[in-house]
């Protein structure tokens, strides 16, 4: 084969194969173009939704963000939110006080002894429990505690209903926190003759604490933002809580949002937005604080990674 033959056959090959872009079908071009537009648009839609929620709440709440929010009780037509703020704190901290010890213990069990069949089914059921609608929990709280036990709308019924909702979240975050600690740490503990309880409570828990705390912050944020389980368990009250756990309804911020917005008074609408602003800021703040703790822990305990 001569040199000219070779070059002519090469040109032939190149002629049919040149311009790879030109061989992309119209269908593929359309897919690439429209796909890119759609991917960008999707993210922008989600981001716009988030920002519009925050701005909508902030702008409408601005006229109501006064000191009187924290010093006056609500009257139904206006006033402040002192009673509702107190109620939200009582209900969410109270439910955390019940759910945290039980949830953390369940999480320890799942992480340390949960490899068998019992642990697997427990883990599965707690995942399913997360999916139970909160209104169902509220209704069960209503028929059991409010009606059957005769507690009426009360702090206790609200707290217990909320804590059942928080249990699986706390259990799973504790489990994950402990699961991230290497096996060698446990072996070192048992190697120096420590008992099961000592290894878990004195060695593993301090290491997992920031991650467990993050889970508790999430749980607190969750309980503060809930409405459905409280409507028919905690009720509503325009007054400050008198310290009684049963037979005494209590107010909370999320109730203000969905009822005051339907009142015919402008002042009530402003209160509803102010309540939404307070709740949203606290909830987002707790989530960000939790995130920060995880990052802080990872930096500090770099040796574990």
């Amino acid at each position, binding site marked *: 084969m001569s040199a000219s033959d070779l070059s002519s056959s090469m040109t032939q090959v190149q002629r049919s194969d040149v311009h790879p872009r030109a061989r992309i079908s119209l269908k593929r071009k359309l897919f690439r173009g429209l796909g890119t537009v759609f991917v960008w648009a999707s993210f922008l839609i989600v*981001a716009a939704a988030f920002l519009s929620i925050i701005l*909508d*709440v902030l702008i409408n709440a601005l006229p109501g963000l006064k000191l009187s929010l924290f010093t006056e009780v609500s009257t139904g037509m206006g006033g402040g939110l002192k009673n509702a703020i107190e109620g939200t704190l009582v209900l969410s901290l109270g439910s955390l006080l019940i759910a945290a010890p039980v949830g953390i*213990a369940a999480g320890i069990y799942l992480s340390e002894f949960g490899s068998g069949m019992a642990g697997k089914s427990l883990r599965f059921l707690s995942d399913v429990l997360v999916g139970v609608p909160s209104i169902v929990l509220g209704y069960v709280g209503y028929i059991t505690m409010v009606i059957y036990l005769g507690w009426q709308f009360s702090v206790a019924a609200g707290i217990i209903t909320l804590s059942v909702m928080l249990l699986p979240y706390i259990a799973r975050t504790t489990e994950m926190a402990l699961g991230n600690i290497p096996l060698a740490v446990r072996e070192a503990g048992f190697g120096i003759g420590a008992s099961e309880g000592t290894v878990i409570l004195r060695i593993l828990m301090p290491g997992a604490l920031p991650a467990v705390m993050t889970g508790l912050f999430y749980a607190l944020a969750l309980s503060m933002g809930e409405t459905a389980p409280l409507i028919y368990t905690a009720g509503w009250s325009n007054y400050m809580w008198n310290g009684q756990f049963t037979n005494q309804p209590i107010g909370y911020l999320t109730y203000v949002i969905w009822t005051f917005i339907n009142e015919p008074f402008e002042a009530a609408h402003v209160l509803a937005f102010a309540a939404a602003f307070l709740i949203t800021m606290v909830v987002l703040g707790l989530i960000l604080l939790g995130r920060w703790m995880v990052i802080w822990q990872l930096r500090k305990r770099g040796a574990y990674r």
Partner: protein
Amino acid sequence: MKPSLFRFGLVGTASFLPLSLIALIVFLALYSWPAIQYNGFDFFWRNDWDLGNLYGNPVEIRGQQVMPGASFGIWFLVVGTLSSAFLALLFALPIAVASAYFLVEMLPKWLSGPLALLVDLLAAIPSVVFGLWGYALLIPFLGQSVFPWLATHFGFIPFFGGSPGSGYGLLTTAIVLAFMIIPLISATMREGISAIEPALKEAGLGMGLNRLEVLWHIILPKLKTTLVGVSILALGRALGETMAVVMVSGNALNYLPHNIYTPISTMAAFIVSQLESALQDPTNMAVEALAEIALVLLILTVIVNIIARLLLWGAKVRT
């Protein structure tokens, strides 16, 4: 090592979790038993929620004391719950997957972190604040501008025509629900996409696919189980969502949607909006019928969640 007191204590506390799930089902079933007997099985298909004549004398029907004319069919709730949840999933799925892909593959690392946080924070916004947003911002906007425009220009598509309504209704509910489930799907898909072996993506790129074609032909088929699992999980979330739906759905009673703008109600929202009037029933049958709805909703979401979790466990995904 022999089981210690410590471990027994742990087992005891841990068993609160399954016990509370069983207790929920048992309490609801016990309480709603009279309503289950009175309503029969066909109450799913009847469309006649009516407390009856509350000023009459209670009559005994099928062994239960009820007010005359009372009946508790929930077909409109079945339709409203399923249609709003499926429509929400239909909207959420493409947007969530595309935004997950955008955050993982199309942005530099320093930028994707903070922007992903934006999507994650959307998940933390309380349901009632979503409802407030829908009520104060979306409904006036959609009801006065978007829906009339849709109805005039796209009326030829089935269910798009007819009266555009006031803004309260099926489409608004589905849009709000979609934004509530997007973060869940998006976060799971983000993890799924970043866990794919780089070699697979490189193989696709090497064959001349661009990045989007790699997503469509390689990444998504690989994540099929995860995608189906998290979709069903999100569906379960949408089925049980309460406060946002109460505030934007229009709380229809015995009313079937004839187009996408029609007011609806869902099982969860109905329980919140109706308990007050159900308490007026002196025979207590209406409250028990609401408990039956709660039981139906509970069983429905438990089944949906079991299916979703089995799929996700199979795909080794933690959410």
